[in-house]
């Protein structure tokens, strides 16, 4: 990465803009199953807010707050949530990602179980997309120099 020149305008604007962007991303993920949006779009917006932080501040300083190891763990956790909910449906006797069967283990009726299953999928996709976007940007910005490598 090139040498960093601190700029008070960019830092202040990012500090003001990042919390509303993250709040909007969480809104998009949470309302993904009955309005436009969803896990992918919300994850992209959430990842963009972290990328904005990496651009505006020192990349090593932000990396200490949000470590690459944690980022990789989050990436696989999102895939695990997605595949896990699908597999639970499969184990309970329905098709893969057929959420209606989840009313056997959740204390709600079938339609509500279907909505909750979709929400779980959206959350998993959102976590995975966020961390993959941050990981791609870190690979580009640091030219492949990762932490913990000699």
């Amino acid at each position, binding site marked *: 990465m090139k040498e960093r020149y601190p700029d008070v305008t960019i830092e202040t604007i990012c500090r003001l803009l990042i919390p509303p962007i993250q709040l909007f991303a969480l809104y998009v993920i949470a309302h993904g199953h009955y309005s436009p949006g969803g896990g992918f*779009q919300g994850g*992209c917006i959430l990842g*963009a807010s972290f990328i904005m932080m990496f*651009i505006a501040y020192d990349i090593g300083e932000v990396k200490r707050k949000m470590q690459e190891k944690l980022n990789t763990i989050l990436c696989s956790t999102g895939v695990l949530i997605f595949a896990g909910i699908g597999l639970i449906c499969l184990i309970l006797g329905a098709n893969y990602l057929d959420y209606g069967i989840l009313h056997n283990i959740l204390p709600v009726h079938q339609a509500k179980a279907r909505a909750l299953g979709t929400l779980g999928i959206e959350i998993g996709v959102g976590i995975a997309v966020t961390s993959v976007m941050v990981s791609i940007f870190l690979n*580009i910005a640091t030219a492949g120099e990762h932490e913990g490598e000699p």
Partner: protein
Amino acid sequence: MIWQLDIVFLILVVISAIAAISVKDLLSSAILLGAYSFLMCLLWSEMGAVDVAFTEAAVGAGISTAFFIGFIYQTTRRTKD
């Protein structure tokens, strides 16, 4: 659907796409591609495909512009051809 608005957006999309591939400065090219994505987003939301427009605004105009700028910092800013 308002066809006058459609024609204005389509002309702007073509102009920004041609400008993005003909300009010599790679940073300007990345910003023009962001403008192209945003115009496509306007076009789609005007046609009623709100979900596609949302994806285009989040991915095309937001993330990929940041990725392109990150790539340009790893190479030279002027194109050779």
